């Protein structure tokens, strides 16, 4: 298994330039700028159906939160967006998922390049067992985004600055990334994801292992990054979903129950199941 940036793949990195996957952003029918469009997405683990006919539009320049009880399929669905489910034995995805209008399941789509465009941050920070500098430099170097030392230095500094980590690590860039605190490690892997200039960042419970201060820093970072990226976050914290997202989608038993503006979902949800879940009434 090869790891690239902050994404995991079974495939070796392709030599093709990253731009191979780029296509011009397509405006959604309703005029909104949708980065990802999912239609009738089913996911199966062997015979067991984990997701049933999911339809959702993920907006650009905004944070979309996926909420729902454990096992509802929200992380499974998140992993569909960069084909991380390809790496899971027995997992089968059907339906159509478009990134900027292009079906990500097309044969011409290289999943490795897809994962550079659609980066991912996990619950537990997973820096490479390398220096802070190398954690950031690896992705841009392997994707040919930066070649000279000056270019790579610049990407490392820019990425760490955008992740709000530069001031804390600039004097120890060549020390191991694993020596940082949990919150710093999580910002390091976000910096690593940013370094390959993705368009979408998927975050699977990025703060669940962090203390409130580290959580606040990540939330602040999410708020800053959303202007540039489409961000999708899976979280079990209702308060966090309410704070950081503009759209919220509630999943239950493999179905998408309700999706809408976060403010609306948390003040006046339409579906009783949503209301029961967010208010702590789930039996």
């Amino acid at each position, binding site marked *: 298994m090869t790891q690239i940036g902050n994404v995991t793949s079974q495939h070796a990195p392709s030599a093709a330039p990253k731009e191979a996957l780029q296509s011009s952003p397509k405006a959604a029918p309703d005029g909104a700028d949708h980065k990802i469009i999912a239609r009738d997405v089913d996911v199966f683990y062997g015979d067991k159906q984990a997701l049933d006919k999911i339809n959702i539009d993920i907006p650009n320049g905004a944070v979309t939160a996926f909420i729902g009880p454990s096992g509802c399929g929200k992380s499974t669905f998140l992993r569909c967006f960069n084909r991380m489910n390809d790496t899971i034995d027995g997992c089968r995805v059907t339906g159509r998922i478009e990134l900027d209008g292009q079906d990500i399941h097309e044969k011409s789509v290289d999943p490795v390049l897809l994962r550079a465009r659609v980066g991912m941050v996990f619950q537990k920070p997973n820096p490479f067992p390398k220096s802070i500098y190398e954690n950031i430099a690896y992705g841009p170097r392997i994707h040919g985004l930066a070649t000279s030392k000056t270019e790579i230095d610049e990407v490392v500094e820019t990425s760490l600055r955008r992740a709000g980590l530069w001031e804390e690590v600039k004097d120890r860039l060549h020390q191991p990334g694993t020596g940082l605190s949990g919150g710093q490690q999580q910002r390091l892997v976000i910096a690593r994801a940013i370094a390959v200039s993705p368009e979408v960042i998927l975050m699977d419970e990025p703060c669940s292992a962090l203390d409130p201060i580290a959580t606040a820093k990540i939330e602040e970072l999410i708020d800053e990054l959303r202007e540039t990226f489409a961000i999708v976050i899976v979280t079990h914290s*209702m*308060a966090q979903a*309410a704070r950081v997202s503009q759209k919220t989608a509630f999943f239950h038993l493999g179905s998408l129950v309700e999706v809408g503006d976060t403010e609306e979902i*948390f*003040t*006046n*949800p339409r579906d009783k199941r949503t*209301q*029961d879940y*967010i*208010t*702590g*009434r*789930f*039996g």
Partner: protein
Amino acid sequence: MRTISVLGMSDHIVKSFSDDLHQLATDITRMGGLAERQVGEALDVFMRRNAAGARAVIERDTDIDNMQKEIERQAIRILVLRQPVAQDMRQAVTPFKIVNAIERIGDLAKNIAKRTLVLAEESALDAELLEAIAEMGKLVRQRICDILDAYATLDLEAATRVWMKDEDIDEQFDAVFHKLLSVMRDQPEAVEACAHLLFVAKNLERIGDHATNIAEIVHFLVTGEEMGTHRPRGGSEWPTVS
């Protein structure tokens, strides 16, 4: 004592959360009952021009103020501990507005009692005028009773009826106002008493307004949506003089 309804009661996974919301609604209803009683007694002592009774009404207003503080403290506690959302959020946030309206109703009842202390010294007041104010008072008392019932049972229809009906109080206020003008024209010596009576009537009209404010809060509490803005209105804020 009114029976209390709470939205989605009894099925919180954390039972103490449901208990807290129930206690909050119970205390608000008790506070409302106290204000309702204050309005009733203020009107009674006003009609009988009973100075001792008026002083008792004035003193009891502190109880309402204290209940307001206690209820706000409870609501803040729920917000901090539970971070409520959706219907729970509405049940934890609307108390701040409701107790404010109830506290104002209490203040207006106290003001009627204060006017009563002055009017108790007056020998003769126009009987027809007093009758008109008494009628207005009856309507206002009924309106408070209706809206507190609607709040306790979360009865959206009843709350909407209160909201729609405020015009009759406004109309009665207009009628009282014009009667007062006519008495003041005819009996210049009664001008001072009439000025006090005008404030009594205005206080009642304001109490009616607070009942409709509570109706709007109940609507938001139950539906999560604001009430429309077009409510029929009987009189103007202060009636015009022709």
